[in-house]
């Protein structure tokens, strides 16, 4: 009975700690609110069933991301078309921002969605989950140097896109 209680408590802690970041990550990789929620729910359902296999709580975040990424890949095995038309993505409004900040944020969001997944994935892992280059490299199965290059290029592409769109406020001159 105690182990059941512990298991439940452990799971609840994982859900409290990681569900928001996993939803954000899911939202950015699939660009669809309903699918993102579904992916997160499925991820935690699988995590609940396999919780006894998680020996190291410190590895929980990485474990959950792996489950979510696999689940996302399965979505395509089921031949569900991708929903990437940025114009139709509904993102809930966050804290109140000044108009200029909102413009900058919206352009950045468009830019992130347009990024090739090979640049977007490591960038999201760094920004959403706070991962180091080494951790991203482990998660994605790439070399650390490749990840570092992808991170640099991801930011470079975003900045170039912002400059094209005429936002110069906080964006540093690249060249």
């Amino acid at each position, binding site marked *: 009975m105690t182990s059941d209680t512990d298991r*439940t408590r452990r*799971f*609840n802690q994982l*859900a*409290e700690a990681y*569900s*928001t970041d996993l*939803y*954000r990550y899911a*939202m*950015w990789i699939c660009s669809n*609110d*309903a*699918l993102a*929620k*579904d992916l*997160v*729910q*499925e991820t*935690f*359902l699988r*995590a*609940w*069933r396999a919780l006894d296999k998680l020996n190291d709580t410190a590895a929980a975040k990485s474990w959950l991301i792996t489950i979510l990424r696999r689940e996302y890949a399965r*979505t395509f095995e*089921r031949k*569900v*078309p991708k*929903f990437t038309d940025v114009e139709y993505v509904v*993102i*809930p*409004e*966050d804290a109140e*921002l000044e108009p200029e*900040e909102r413009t*900058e*944020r919206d352009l*950045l*969001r468009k830019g*992130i969605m347009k990024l090739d997944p090979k640049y977007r994935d490591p960038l*999201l892992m*760094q*920004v*959403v989950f706070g991962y*180091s*280059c080494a951790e991203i490299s482990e998660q994605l199965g790439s070399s650390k140097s490749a990840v*570092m*290059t992808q*991170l*640099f*290029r991801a*930011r*470079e592409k*975003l*900045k170039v896109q912002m400059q094209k769109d005429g936002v110069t406020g*906080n*964006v*540093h*001159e690249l060249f």
Partner: protein
Amino acid sequence: MSMNFSEFKRRLGEDPLSRDEEMLRARNSAPEFEQAALDAEAFERALQNAVNIRAPEGLVNTILDIAHTAPKRRNWVPLAMAATVLLAVGAAGIAWKQSHRWDSVDAYVEDHYSKDGDKLVANSADGVSEKDINRIMARLDAFAGPQLSDRIRFIKLCPTPDGRGAHMVVSTSQGPVTIIYMPNTKVSEGEMLVFDQMHALLVNLDHGSVAIIGTRAQNVENLQAMVRNSLKTGLIDA
């Protein structure tokens, strides 16, 4: 040997918030380095702001509900041992108590609807794509035929007494009605539940069941045949 400016900017692009000793030394070595670091930090704040989309209200609770009501994986050794000491009738009763958070389907329907049922009805005017309907139904090994899917204006996965199900809001000539599909739950056929200002009709399907929930002014019985004919259940890889 000190870092040159190109190398410094490259490393800023890899990890703008790095507190690496070498980076800190380089940052303090000249004003242009310091400015580049400040610009990178500003960009990072904007990036952080852009990615921080708000998670849906109640996400954690939905996750917990779905997980805690999911059927547990069977552990065959304890089950075999238990089988030697438990009589079938007793086991059925105990199993219900262990795997359900609600004492009955009636309690579940009332509890589940009272959480956000009215709110979902009120906010469900935008409609939902057929892709989303099919995807969610496929998760439940089911399919909604056009008679039903054309009416669905909201759908989400939700907890049920026996694992996941679907919570739908459908349009009818009497106004929006809620349908909860419970893929692994059997109900008392035709039972009408009454709670608050609502009533709910329980209907068994080939696999699982539904609760059709409306206000007491709505005739939910009228929807029974449509739901029964349109909700195809127990499919494999629909």
